[in-house]
């Protein structure tokens, strides 16, 4: 008699229950309002503004994350330098740091230090403005981009660059012509997850940019404001949009980044 595999049944069972629970939760949110109410909420000026602000800030923060994270990740993957271990640990810091604390730290930096005041005088005001939302998203999310790109670069043998250099490339050309094209799927996976996290960013943005209706009202802030004052229809429609965005980005991420590690 062939024996049933108990261990497989139990472990797969746990994974399946978990999956079903998550699906139920998402469906609960999405199906809560009536389609008509959902439609009217989504077309309301407030939600339209939140969608617009969320997309603008998250795209801007994703681009900045890429510009910061790609060179840093390349340095960490390819070069040995003094303090590399410390850098490796500290750039992961925002991963472990609660976003709320990150927001307070940014608030102190832009609100109380000479650098922050200088920037404000030059017209770059971060406290309680949409610019602050971008900075908050960048600070909280670049470690995801950096970790993905670091592991992507580490998975590409430096010998591709060595060969490219013997074939006439400078260092920068070898990176541009060989390593970056080979890192495309990592870039896509990292970009998508950074963007999705940016759209969902709440804690840090709340501290630095505040929650001002129609001014710093991104989708999560809108969800928070409308939950606080009992506008359940508006809150749920913001949540629904966020769920759709998360599901779509996760799909793209798993597609391109299934092998890369966060």
């Amino acid at each position, binding site marked *: 008699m062939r024996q049933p595999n108990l261990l497989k049944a139990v472990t797969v069972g746990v994974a399946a229950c978990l999956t079903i629970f998550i699906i139920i939760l998402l469906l609960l949110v999405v199906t809560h309002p009536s389609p008509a109410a959902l439609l009217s909420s989504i077309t309301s000026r407030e939600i339209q503004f939140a969608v617009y602000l969320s997309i603008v800030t998250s795209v801007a923060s994703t681009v900045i994350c890429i510009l910061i994270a790609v060179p840093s990740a390349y340095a960490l993957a390819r070069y040995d330098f003094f303090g590399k271990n410390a850098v490796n640990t500290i750039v992961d810091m925002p991963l472990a740091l609660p976003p709320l604390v990150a927001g307070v730290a940014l608030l102190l930096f832009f609100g109380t230090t000479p650098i922050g005041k200088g920037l404000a005088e030059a017209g770059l005001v971060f406290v309680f403005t949409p610019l602050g939302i971008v900075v908050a998203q960048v600070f909280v999310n670049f470690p995801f981009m950096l970790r993905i790109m670091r592991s992507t670069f580490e998975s590409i*043998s430096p*010998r*591709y660059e*060595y*060969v*490219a*250099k*013997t*074939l*006439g*490339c*400078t260092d920068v*050309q070898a990176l541009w012509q*060989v390593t970056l*094209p*080979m890192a*495309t799927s990592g870039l896509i996976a990292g970009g998508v997850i950074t963007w999705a996290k940016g759209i969902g960013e709440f804690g840090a943005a709340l501290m630095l940019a505040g929650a001002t209706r129609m001014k710093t009202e991104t989708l999560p802030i809108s969800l928070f404001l409308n939950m606080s004052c009992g506008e359940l229809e508006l809150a749920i429609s913001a949540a629904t949009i966020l769920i759709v965005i998360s599901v779509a980005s996760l799909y793209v991420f798993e597609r391109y980044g299934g092998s890369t590690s966060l």
Partner: protein
Amino acid sequence: MLSIEHLSKDMGEFVLKDATLQVNDGEYMVIIGPTGAGKTILLETLAGIYPPDSGRMVLDGRDITDAPPRERRISMVYQDYMLFPHLTVAENIGFGLRNQKVAQPEIEQKVAEAAQFLSIDHLLHRYPETLSGGEQQRAAIARAVVMEPALLLLDEPLSALDGRTREKLRRELRRLHDAYGITVIHVTHNFEEVFSLADRVAVIRGGEIVQVGTPDEVFRKPNCEFVANFVGVENLFRGTCARKEGLSEVTIEGVKMVSTALADSEMVCVTIRPEEILISPQPIGSCARNQYSGMVQEIADHGVTVRVTVDCGVSLVVLITRQGYLEMGLAEGDAVFVAFKASSVQIF
């Protein structure tokens, strides 16, 4: 001509120590050594990937020690091909020419010629991942030679291939070298590549080049115990040496052997290659200076060849063909006679 002068580089795990080597124009130099001996680091330092800690490299009269890789006219082929996966085979082969801003028609012509020489002209529009290992390595070689380098570096180019493909590509390398007279440094740990390809061979160990010479010189006259052990000398003994009638007489555990080689010191190492020893159930009528009787200790059948260990005071390993072995009908415990020439006894 390439001169490597006292080149040193410490990379922690791998080192290069005061390596000095000359490679002549059009020469096929094979560098052989165990894993971790510093073979790859030597090639990568030559290619300009790392600056050396000390020493110089001079290629065709030009000091290239501090030149960036792209100005060295040195091409490199790795064991695992390193074809750019996002480019077609044609784009891979033309990659270097495009960097040199060569005109597109000329690139196409040169790529086609190189591909044809290496029999991969039907694969030019494919992507590397769709090719077999042998085809990928041909493409990598084409990508290197299309640059017309002053020096071609091959880092274990055949190690990742299976037996038959390896043999085919080995012949291709020979043909390529003969046709273009290209100067080659080929790094390997495979002895067959030494015999079938090398004009000269250098043995490297722990980042040091310990012996350079023709394959015959190195394999028949290893200059130190490491080389002897590494090239697989089975009969390696220590003994005391005395001069006698212009020859050397070495005493090993009471057994005397005559050698045509002359030793510098009294304590010596001695080797006799197993295939240079004759073995027979009858006494051997031959002019060989060293003749012994003994007993068969062990017989190891390797298919094509058979290794017979004979105890004649010292344990001698004798290598014979399977056919010879079957004809003689040897068995363990048999009494046999062995003989070898004085010139077969190497001393160092």
